[in-house]
């Protein structure tokens, strides 16, 4: 199966994207100089990207804390970023690595259910769908979560992640197709959620 997972430099996809890359570079530069307002702007722009990546990997109860840790790690290591315009791909890598470390540590601790009493009452069906998405290949999983959980458009996903718009289109299309197939086969998910395999 072909996965389109392209990380790295942002591609020049037109004037809007170029402007955006310039803005990111300026913001990253300001953060590197200790500008905390710039950090808040960076956080607002990229928190959905990081949240989607982390949510695709770790239990929901730990997601918010890990998202914060990812941004703190990015802040402390921002001097290591060679090309500020590549911030999206860079922080995405930090998020993936941090989630992997967390899961490694969590294996050594007592297993807890994903939803603890007293947490938000997220329906079992929602968690079942999330469970299915989490089992999709990484490229599809992350892109679909950015779109379906975070509400990002395809263009936004491309802009923030550093993927080309073409890659995002492919990931969304193939990921959705796979998700439809998996939803059709899963007995935990009611007919209401079943979508036709088109």
């Amino acid at each position: 199966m072909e996965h389109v997972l392209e990380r790295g430099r942002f591609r020049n996809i037109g004037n809007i994207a170029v402007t955006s890359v310039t803005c990111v570079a300026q913001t990253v530069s300001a953060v590197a100089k200790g500008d905390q307002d710039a950090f808040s702007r960076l956080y607002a722009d990229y928190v959905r990207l990081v949240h989607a990546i982390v949510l695709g990997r770790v239990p929901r109860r730990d997601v918010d804390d890990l998202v914060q840790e990812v941004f703190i790690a990015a802040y402390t290591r921002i001097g290591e970023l060679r090309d500020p315009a590549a911030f999206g791909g860079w922080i995405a890598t930090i998020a993936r690595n941090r989630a992997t470390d967390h899961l490694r540590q969590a294996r050594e601790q007592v297993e807890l259910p994903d939803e603890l009493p007293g947490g938000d009452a997220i329906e079992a069906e929602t968690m079942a769908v999330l469970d299915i998405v989490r089992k999709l290949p990484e490229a599809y999983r992350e892109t679909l979560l950015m779109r379906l959980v975070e509400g990002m458009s395809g263009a936004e996903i491309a802009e923030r992640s550093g993927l080309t718009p073409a890659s995002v289109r492919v990931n969304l299309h193939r990921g959705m197709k796979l998700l439809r197939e998996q939803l059709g086969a899963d007995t935990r998910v009611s007919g209401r959620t079943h979508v036709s395999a088109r």
Partner: protein
Amino acid sequence: MSMNDYLWDPSDTPDPEVERLEQMLGRLRSTPPVPDLSTVGRSATAVRLTPAATYVGVRFVAPALAAAATIALMVGATWQTSRLGAAWQVASLTGEPRIGSRTLAGEGQLAMGQTLTTDAASSARVEVSTIGEVTIGSNSRVRLVETRDGHHRLSLDRGSLHAIIVAPPGQFIVDTPSATATDLGCSYTLHVDEDGSGLLSVEKGWVALESNGLESFVPAGASCRTDPTRGPGTPFYDDADEAFRDALDQFDYGRNPARRAAALRLVLDHRDVSAVTLWHLIPRVAAADRGAVVDALADQMAMPRGVTRDAILRLDRTALDSWWKELGLGDANWWRRWKRPTP
């Protein structure tokens, strides 16, 4: 390859099936607060703004740069340590508490926005800046909401904490799902159940509980329940017997009017009813019952000069606060002033 435009562009005509998934999974969306950077140190390496290709020459000066970076990191570490006073020191007392997703071994720091979680086998001690300390019990979760000069705020989502605060009133606040507890110079224990209901027990000084405009002032030796839908209940002294507490619970949180009325009669006639409890009942009872409560309180503590029965029955705030002051437990005027927004 055909492409669903709505999947690419949410402003396009909705695809019902994608929209349904969006609505369902969108419930998982959350935006944690921006992390507090005031306690975070950073690598001294400067960010590079020019293309990587221009850095070919770096290899020739790499050893010198590495040495400089090492020195800079040492300086940075010293600088960071000097700034850590803004963070709250945390020490594990038993087991392995977690700060965020990291296990706390020994001591650590709790930064703004971070959570401290304990399980059944763990507990921790937190230093509240320079004004006191809080012991976090087992199966608890707290988040540091705010810490700056004169303003320190935690949220207790579940579990228990014991606070000892040595500071002017109003500097330490704890949010719970059912009420906000404001320290008025004291030590106390606060417990929050999984359903969000809580119990505050004050050992020294007093604590103000508030939710949706409903206030309870809880003095030393007294406790007060809180409920996520009804807010703070009526305070009672800890030596009150079980029947009295049950009756007060029934009055505060019962839904059957007849049972609440019977519970109120039991409270008013009970030997353990205190002036503190009666003062809090005045605005909480129906107008028809208010006179009986006022008379019961007057039996224990005469109204101060200038306060009339009519003013109390009208729930005149100044009159009520004057009567509270007569109890000798603290000045409610201070609380009123403190609650006014800072200009």
